[in-house]
């Protein structure tokens, strides 16, 4: 680093602190928001993605798992079985609802995405049971997600109520967190009884194929059979579910990211600009002494880039320190840091530093060395 750049930068510690602080804050905000977005993306699609089905039979127009207004006739199961491509079919009943623990007051409820599955087929049931020995659950029994248990203090043996009906918690599973709600599993029979569900209706049919490459053939066949249902690929269904939840958040997130980026540029730019204006006479002296404009530009760019590097280090450090703490304090704060994002933020910080140096450099170009003879 050039001597003049280093000395100018580090001789004004308060200014440097403000400048680095501004960039760090911006990096922290960008980092934490990106990590949050990645965390949610990973979390909300996880259950749908990991259910080992090649396709989901859904009502025409149903695009995702959480807005589960899908209704398919139970007869579809036998119809699908009769096709040559299908290996297995497993019906699911899915219903979003609010429940409460027996011991909690009536107004202390929580969201549940209740999933009724066929325990003989297992497809669509808990991905992994961590606590409790009963899987599948028995009649009037329920397996709740670990995140739900953590957030609402639900233990094995607790009774969960909806209206006058209750289910007893017999297990705790993982992989069913949708951030704002979690899945809980019961058998199909329990779901029909608990939800007063008509015997001939299901929400989805999970389908596995003998040869997954024949998916399109089966999808066409389904379309030919009925215009009320469609077959959706598992991966597409997971992505649509993710988009349903995150699609509304994404534009807000982008706005905040842009604001954070602008804040970073503004704080770093303003402090570097004021430093340049303040030192304008000294830059004039250097020009008079025969220092060229490129040398002086380098002084400003180096100051800006070092400010950016320090800001990035502090901001990234803050993100790494604060994220786990925040995750423990606020359960919805699910973060996941990708190295690609870290590299991206480093690039954005560099861009911030270059932008921040741009106006001061233009100012510097216009400094007339003759002015140093005045006063």
């Amino acid at each position: 680093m050039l001597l003049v750049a280093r000395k100018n930068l580090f001789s004004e510690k308060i200014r440097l602190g403000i400048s680095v602080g501004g960039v760090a804050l911006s990096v922290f905000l960008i980092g934490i928001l990106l990590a949050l977005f990645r965390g949610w993306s990973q979390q909300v699609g996880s259950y749908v993605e990991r259910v080992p089905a090649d396709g989901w039979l859904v009502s025409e127009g149903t695009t995702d798992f959480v807005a589960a207004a899908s209704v398919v006739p139970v007869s579809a199961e036998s119809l699908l079985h009769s096709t040559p491509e299908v290996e297995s079919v497993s019906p699911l009943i899915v219903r979003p609802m609010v429940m409460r623990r027996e011991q909690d007051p009536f107004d202390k409820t929580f969201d549940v995405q209740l999933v009724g599955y066929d325990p003989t087929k297992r497809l669509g049931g808990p991905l992994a049971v961590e606590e409790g020995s009963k899987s599948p659950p028995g009649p009037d029994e329920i397996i709740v997600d670990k995140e739900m248990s953590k957030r609402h203090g639900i233990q094995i043996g607790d009774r969960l109520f909806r209206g006058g009906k209750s289910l007893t918690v017999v297990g705790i599973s993982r992989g069913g967190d949708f951030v704002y709600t979690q899945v809980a599993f019961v058998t199909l029979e329990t779901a029909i009884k608990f939800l007063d569900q008509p015997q001939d209706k299901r929400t989805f049919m999970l389908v596995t194929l003998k040869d997954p490459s024949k998916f399109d053939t089966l999808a066409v066949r389904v379309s030919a059979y009925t215009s009320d249902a469609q077959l959706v690929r598992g991966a597409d269904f997971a992505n649509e579910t993710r988009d349903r939840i995150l699609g509304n958040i994404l534009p807000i997130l982008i706005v905040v990211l842009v604001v954070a980026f602008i804040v970073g540029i503004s704080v770093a730019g303003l402090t570097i600009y004021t430093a340049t204006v303040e030192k304008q006479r000294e830059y004039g002296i250097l020009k008079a002494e025969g220092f060229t404009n490129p040398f002086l530009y380098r002084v400003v760019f180096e100051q800006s880039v070092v400010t950016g590097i320090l800001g990035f280090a502090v901001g990234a450090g803050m993100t790494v320190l604060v994220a786990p703490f925040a995750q423990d304090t606020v359960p919805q704060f699910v973060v996941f840091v990708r190295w690609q994002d870290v590299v991206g933020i480093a690039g954005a910080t560099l861009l911030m530093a270059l932008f921040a140096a741009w106006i001061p450099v233009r100012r510097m170009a216009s400094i007339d060395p003759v002015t140093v003879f005045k006063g």
Partner: protein
Amino acid sequence: MTEPPHEILSLEGVSKVYRSGEFGVTALDKATLHIHGGEIVAVMGPSGSGKTTLLTVAGALLRPTEGTVRICGIDVTHLDESRLAAVRRQKVGFVYQSFNLLEALTAIENVRVVVQNGSHNGRAQAMSRAVDLLHMFGLSHRLNSLPKRMSDGEKQRVAIARALAKDPDLILADEPTANLDAKRGQEVMHLLQQKAQELHKAVVVVSHDNRIRQFAHRVLWLEDGRLRDHG
């Protein structure tokens, strides 16, 4: 046999007119000046007489409107910015009224940064030259002091050391004693005179201060942009 002193600075019929719309102010009017190595020339005159303009034109900072400026034989009148900067870097040292040291740099760094600029000197060589110069000016105890910790006299000595750092042929000093008390002013001028003669530098000192006369080989008077001998 000694070699005749060679010409360092030559101004031939140099004028400088500052234009503002239709109006023009003549700051320098057909000034002619020739200065050789080892010579100290004082330029005196009232405020607004064009002294600073003369210095900046002579120092390749300002292009004249008319006439020719040569520094060490190089016609700088029509050089572009980068070449002018190169001439200043290699041939001209400045001493300013308000010292103009870089505040964040210590005495040794103020000198070193100029030594290193544009030369192939490494850090160690530049450092060694800066130490020698400051030692020459009696500032060995101030090497690592920041300007704000130095007296005005010390600052001006650092400034002169800096002006000599790149071993220029021409030193241009603008009111070098204006911010110093009489005693410090005398000391600084004596030092400048001594080093300029030892190192065979051409020096132009622009000043209001009559006491400068005693250190100059020639005194010129500048009034209304016109330069003339003043005995």
